[in-house]
């Protein structure tokens, strides 16, 4: 009974430590997306390279694909770009680029410099479609399944690790 007096505060302290330790492992910038498991919002945007042609997500129905948000002003996109180029070379999955709040000329020049891994890019100049997808920082990548449902959102660059551990297994499952 007497030991309880010492054990209880120690236990409370221990629980507190566990909570704080878990808190340290979480990145506050990774806001869970409310879109997981929901249909990708519809939009119709002009293509980056052909301003008179448009694209909407419906055109990808029946395919598993990635929607990658990028911009020429986005620093982390440069980190991610070699991974996307590599995925494109290996033909892993069709990638559609959402060029977010960018000047058309800057965007096309950037793709010339760094390579263009995209099946096509659409031009979201005012960022409206970005808001519809809950984008708050490029790069962001959505994995969309054959029915047009968003299955996963990568916030920040796709690292080789995230690709191996999360995205590739998911793509395999969705394509099965």
């Amino acid at each position: 009974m007497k030991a309880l007096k010492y054990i209880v505060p120690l236990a409370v302290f221990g629980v507190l430590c566990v909570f704080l330790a878990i808190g340290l492992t979480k990145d506050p910038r990774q806001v869970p997306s409310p879109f997981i498991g929901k249909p990708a919002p519809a939009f119709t945007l002009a293509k980056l390279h052909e301003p008179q042609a448009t694209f909407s997500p419906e055109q990808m129905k029946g395919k598993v694909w990635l929607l990658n948000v990028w911009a020429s002003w986005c620093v982390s996109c440069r980190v991610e770009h070699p991974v996307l180029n590599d995925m494109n070379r290996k033909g892993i999955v069709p990638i559609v680029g959402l060029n977010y709040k960018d000047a058309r000329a800057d965007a096309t020049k950037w793709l010339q410099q760094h390579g263009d891994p995209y099946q096509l890019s659409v031009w979201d100049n005012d960022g409206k479609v970005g808001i519809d997808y809950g984008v708050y920082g490029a790069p962001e990548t959505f994995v969309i399944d054959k029915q047009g449902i968003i299955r996963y959102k990568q916030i920040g660059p796709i690292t080789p690790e995230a690709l191996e551990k999360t995205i590739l297994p998911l793509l395999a499952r969705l394509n099965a």
Partner: protein
Amino acid sequence: MRRLLAPILLAASLAAWGQSAEIANPDPKVEARLKSIAHELRCLVCQNQTIADSDAPLAVDLRQQVRGMIREGKSDEEIRGYMTDRYGDFVLYKPPFNAVTAVLWVGPALLIVGGFSALFVMLRRRRQAAEGAPSPDAARRREIEALLASDEDAKPKA
């Protein structure tokens, strides 16, 4: 006082200028409602600021979006719904009560209630211990007094 006044006035006028520069012809009614709503919405780029306080491009876009929705006659509820549909509950500065946030809302109250009841129980136990100590019967009392007396004798003389 004069010397203080000038920078204060300058700061105030700059603040006003900053406000009106965002759009060409601000409608005071729309701006007032925008202000009240924007103070409840978190800017996701600079997470500890509201979209009313932040100058991040995303905050500017979201303010613009809210302005548009106010002009369309959307209610505050609808505007908040629009934001949580896209950014999740995290966008609200005042999180809603649901399964995930229950601990957050109820926790402090539980801690207070728990703390006070623990205190109450402890104090009552202590008082009972003081009151309920067995009073020695006559024989035992004599024994105690004898012991005390002998103890007195055993004391070394100063």
